[in-house]
Structure formats: structure tokens, C-alpha cells
């Protein structure tokens, strides 16, 4: 595994765990908005975009941000229309999604 293959999965895992930590364990943490917004605006999309194997970093970032915002809004929207508005639960879903995606990536790169 090269640095580029494990770096982003590692960042995503750390970000997901940090977002969970500041929401569920230490909600008074000073950096909570920064950590949560970083996670929500970048990680759900980046975990998918990494599978696309795009070479260009700007393309990766652009699609990752657009996908992240879309996934966040669609998951929260589906929960709202289903009568299950629960922001902490939505965050939990997104954390789980990112963790699974990042772990699959690590496993995939290990085997390849």
C-alpha cells in the first residue's frame, strides 16, 4: 500500500470518529462546528469518489463536496419525509457509511 492509498481512508475514519466524538461524547468541544462541517461537507462524497479512481485532485474534491452535500441532504430529507427527523441518527448513518466505505477501501487496496 502506498501513502496515497491509505491516506484518505485514514482521514475519513479519523474524521468520522471525531464527528461522532464531538456530537455524542463531548458536545461542548470548541472545535465541534469545524469538525462536523469538515466531515459532512467532504467525507461522505470523498469515500465514494476514492472508488472512482480519478487522477485529478481538483476533480476529486469538486465531486466529493457536491456528493457529500447531496448525500447529507438526501439522507436527512428521506428521514424527514418518513417522519423520522433525527439529526443525531442521520449523523450516525453518515458516520457508518463513511467507516464502511473507508474500511472497504483499505481492504481492497491491501488485496490488490
Amino acid at each position, binding site marked *: 500500500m502506498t501513502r496515497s492509498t491509505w491516506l484518505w481512508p485514514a482521514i475519513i475514519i479519523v474524521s468520522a470518529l471525531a464527528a461522532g466524538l464531538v456530537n455524542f461524547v463531548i458536545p461542548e468541544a470548541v472545535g465541534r462546528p469545524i469538525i462536523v462541517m469538515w466531515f459532512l461537507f467532504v467525507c461522505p462524497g470523498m469515500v465514494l469518489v476514492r472508488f472512482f479512481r480519478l487522477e485529478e485532485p481538483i476533480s476529486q474534491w469538486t465531486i466529493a463536496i457536491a456528493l457529500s452535500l447531496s448525500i*447529507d441532504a438526501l439522507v436527512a430529507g428521506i428521514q424527514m419525509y418518513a417522519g423520522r427527523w433525527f439529526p443525531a441518527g442521520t449523523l450516525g448513518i453518515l458516520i457508518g457509511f463513511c467507516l464502511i466505505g473507508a474500511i472497504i477501501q483499505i481492504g481492497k487496496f491491501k488485496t490488490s
Partner: protein
Amino acid sequence: MNLFKLKYKQESDMSLVDTLKIGSTPLGQQSDIQLIDTLKMGSIQPGLPGLNSLKLPKPLDAICVLLPLFAFFLWAISLQHVSVYDMNDLGLISVLSPKIIVALVILMFSFVLTLQQPQMRVSVLALHIVLVIIILYGTENLIEEAPRFAVVYRHAGYAEYIMRTGTVDPNLDAYFSWPGFFVLSAFVTRVAGYQTILSYAGWAPVFYNLIYFGPMYMIFTSITTNKRLVWLALWFFYLTNWIAQDYFSPQGLNFFLYLVIIAILLTWFKIAPKAKPHKRQHWQFPTRFSPSVSWFLSWLRAPDPLCLIVQPWQRWALLTSLIVVFGLVVFSHPLTPFFVLASVTTMVVFRRCHPFWLPILMAIMTGAWLFFMTQAFLAGHSNMVLGNFGAVSSNISSSVTSRTSNGDPQHQFIALTRIIMTGFIWVLAFIGAVRRLRKGHQDITYILLAVAPFPLIVAQDYGGEMFLRVYLFTLPFMVFFAAALFYSKYRLVIRKTSPWMTIAIIVTNLVLLGGFFFTRYGNEYMDYMTNAEVDSVYYLYSIAPPNSLLIAGWNDTPWQYKNYEKYTCESLAEILPDVVNLKVSKLAQVISSQRNPHIYLLFTRGEKAQAHLLYGLPNDALDRLEDAMLKSEEFKQIYSNRDAQIFIFVGNTKGGGS
């Protein structure tokens, strides 16, 4: 081919089209396909050049880094000298410290200097772009006391409603029929630990303009490998994005999503020459056409120069991403899906991209949302939606001419400046496009995208804003062609820059920057909010019982940020527009007819500014109304501060308080 690759690596700023032309190989033939293969193999990346820009600094390189930092420092220390209370009808320019203007001029000179260096310094150019975004789009938030724009407070109300109730009510407001942005806002606000979006909404313009960079870079690099052209186009965009749709709003986000969709299509879904159907490729135009028509038709069919080919599974992944992103567009804004549809349909119809079924799927998604999710809105607003269809002159008039003929003379000057600056960038774009055309560039896709949004003017006036939206959605392509005016020659690399070209770029930048001060900041007198205004609304909500009728002296009130459904909010501009010419007793009579036991009237600085600027009322018109109300028995003043006064209507009870 190897020779070509070598050349490309050596001269990162040359154009692929240039190279093909120099090689005397017509586009669309074998070398073109080989070129695509080269791109596919990853030998050529049409993105950022490598890290060769991070070498040890030479004196000029050091200047190119120090100048923008100095400009930023100058701007930062000058902010404290700006007092928004001294602003006049010309907006923010009337109170901006000259040092801030000097800082921007230094930044602009530094950018042009960096751009014209023989060796491209991408990281330094990126530094300039980031700084200009912070300065141009962050200044208002840093010098003003509260988030600007009254509508931002209403948007806070939508998000607060969702946070509090966990649902939306389409009968309350049209935006609840397209709630995607507010659902996202409510979710982010809650998990970030904030109580309201107002805690961070002021930074939306900076955030949006930063994220616009990525898709625009992708769009520009999909048409040219000339990095100077790309960076100048990006710079022009930030000097011309005065449209002010980048506040905390669904349209600000949706413009980003629009750019991403177009960027994906232009980067990976353009139709490569070899992919064109065999039959069509050999189809000949009838000889009865005149040479010019034949030339036009050939040009219309010419393949795009840069096609990046990826594996089929990657294409499906990208396509799925695009559809997910469009899902948010449909879910969050009534107008943007139609701009996306117009652009994508145009590209597919003119065979500039595939798949052919994409606009059909997008139309189905848009139609399904309209049919199933917006019935409450459409039932009561069908005339508003379809009433202006086909009324082109009326739609243009409400967007353009009425803005320059109504209101205060200084505001009319601002409106006229906006029209002139729009014309200026469009004329530059037209000349730039013609110049590229004459040089043999195949820009048909980008010309189509530059004109695709215009037909939407036929459909709607969108509250007098359709022309502004068309300007915004065409802007990325217009600035590209405007920048192409300065970089269209066939040159593999710039060894020695023409001083005349440098002067021309500087003069153009000065015009755009000068215009920006008026076009972007010209409405600031009525857009900014003070703490006193916001405090008055806080006080109003603290005393007004639910179901009260709240009446603003005019529009532009920072209210409805909470308990959206619990109060009825009206404005004298709507229920009694000629109130300043009437006696207070008439006002009392109209208010009394509202049959509400709790009626409050709120007058704020922003309302008075808007009545004066947009409606041309005398500066003291609402002040005189307030004086008359103070003397009347029907109204009682219950709150007053520097920028706001609150009255309660006691006409029904003669002395009953709150």
C-alpha cells in the same frame, strides 16, 4: 506521439489544439484519437501542472508572493476604519477605506504580474484567487454587525421550523415545497451545535465562491490546456460575480451543483470524434447550401478538442454521481433544474455530450417532483408560474428597464452600472469568441452553453430576477471567452510577454474591479443589518403573543427567523403602498380591518432605506409617518432604539397595552 508527450511535459501551458494545428493534423482524424488515448493513459493530465512551481524563489517570484500578502495585510488593518453608519445611497463604496481599494489594486497588479511570468506559478496564482475571494466577498461580513439581507433571516426561519418540528408545511411557504437546502441547513446546524443558521450564515459568500473554483477549473480545463487563459478566466469570474446570489440561499448552493453537473459532462461525457456514428460521420451537406452556411454547419458538427476517456464503470459511477447531485437540485430549488435542463438538453441535442437519455431522465425527475411534491404551491400560484410565459418584453422590462427607471437617482445609477458592466463582459466575450473562432478553435459546446440559459427569459420573469439569473448561469462561459481575448494566439509557450497585452489585461481588470465596487456593493445601504435592528425584532418576538399580526413599515425586515408559523407578517409596502400620503386614521382603519387583537408595527433603518432606494420615497417619508403615529391615539410606541421603533395598535382598545 512520444515527441508530443515530451513537448507537452516541457511546456505545460501550451494548447493541445495549438499543437495539433502546428502539426498540420486536422482535428477529428487519427492523431486526435491518439491524443485521447494519451489522455486516457494518464500521460497527460489536463489539470494542475506538477509541483515545479514550488522551486526556490527568485526575486520576482518573491515579489509575487509578498505583494498579495501585503495587500491582504493592508486590507485587514483597514477594515476597522469602515463605519457602515456613514454609508450613503451608493452603497459600501461610499464608506470603504481608500486603503482597501489600494489593497485590491495591488492584488490585481500582482496577479497579472504572476500570470505573465514565463514560468507558471500555480500555487501563487491560487493564493491570489483565495485572497481576492476573501477580500471581495468577506468584507461585508467583517465590517457589518449582523448577517446581511433580510431574506437570510427568513431562511433561518425555515431551518428553525424544520429543526423544531421535524417536518415541512408546503402551505406555509413556497420554499417548503423545495426544502432540500433548508433540510440540509437544519441538519448541519443541529449537529454542529448551533441554535440558528445566523451563527455562520454571514460566511456563505466566501464559502460558495471558494467551492465554485473547483467546477469552474474543470470546465475551463476541458476546453483548453492554456493555463494562463484558465486562471485569467477564473480571476474574471470573481471580479464579475456581482449578482449577489451567493448569500445563504438555495440558489447559491444550486449554482455550485449546476457547475458540477456541467463540469462532469464536459470532462468525461463529451462525444469523442471516433464515437460519432459512422453514418453521420460521412454525411455530406447538400451542395445547395452557400459556403458560409456549409461552413457554419461543419463548425456546428466539429468535435470538441479535449476528450478525457475513462473506463465504462467509471463513466457509470460518474453518471450516478451526477444524477444524485441533480436529485438535490430538484429537491432544493424551483428554478435551477430548468437551467440544468436547458444546458444539458442543448448539449445532447447538438450532440456535444451523451448519454442521450440524460435530459429525459432529468425532465422526468423534475416533473415528478413538481407533480407529487409541490401541489400545494402550484394550486395557489399557477398564474404566478405560467402567467408571464411568452411575455418576453415584459419579462425583460421587469428585470432590466424597470430597475433603472424606479427609485432613488443614485440607485438608478447603480442599476445602470450593472447593465453597462453586463454589456461590457458580454462584448468582451463576443470579441474573444470571434477571435478564437478565427484562430481555428472548436468552441461550439461552450458557445452553446453560453447562450442556453437565455430562452428561460421567455418562460418567466421570476420576480424580476430572471435576467440576473441568466447572467449568472452564463457567466462562467462569458468570462472564459472574455479572457480568451488576451490569450488566443498560437504559441507553445510564452517566452516574452507583450507589454501591450499586459497593459490591456490590467486596464480590463481595473474596469471590472471598478465596476464591481458599484455592482456588487451598490445595494448595501438597504442590505446591511445592524444589531439595533435585529435587537428590535428579538424584542418584538419576546412580547408578541402567538398569532399576532406583525406589520413592517416597508420590506427588508430581519424577521421570521423563528416561530415562522406562529405569526402573520405583512408589510405596508404590500397592504397600503401609498401609506405615506395618507392620514394615520386611514392606516388605523386598514389595520383595524385585519381583525387581530394583537397588531404590532415595526419600523427599521433597512425598511426606510429600501423605501427610499427602490421605491423612490423621500428619505424621511416613514419618519414622518412615525411622528404622526406618535401623536395619534390609535398607536402607542413600545420600543425604540437607534435603528428601530415598534408600535402597538391600540385603536380597538384605546389604551390597551401589550
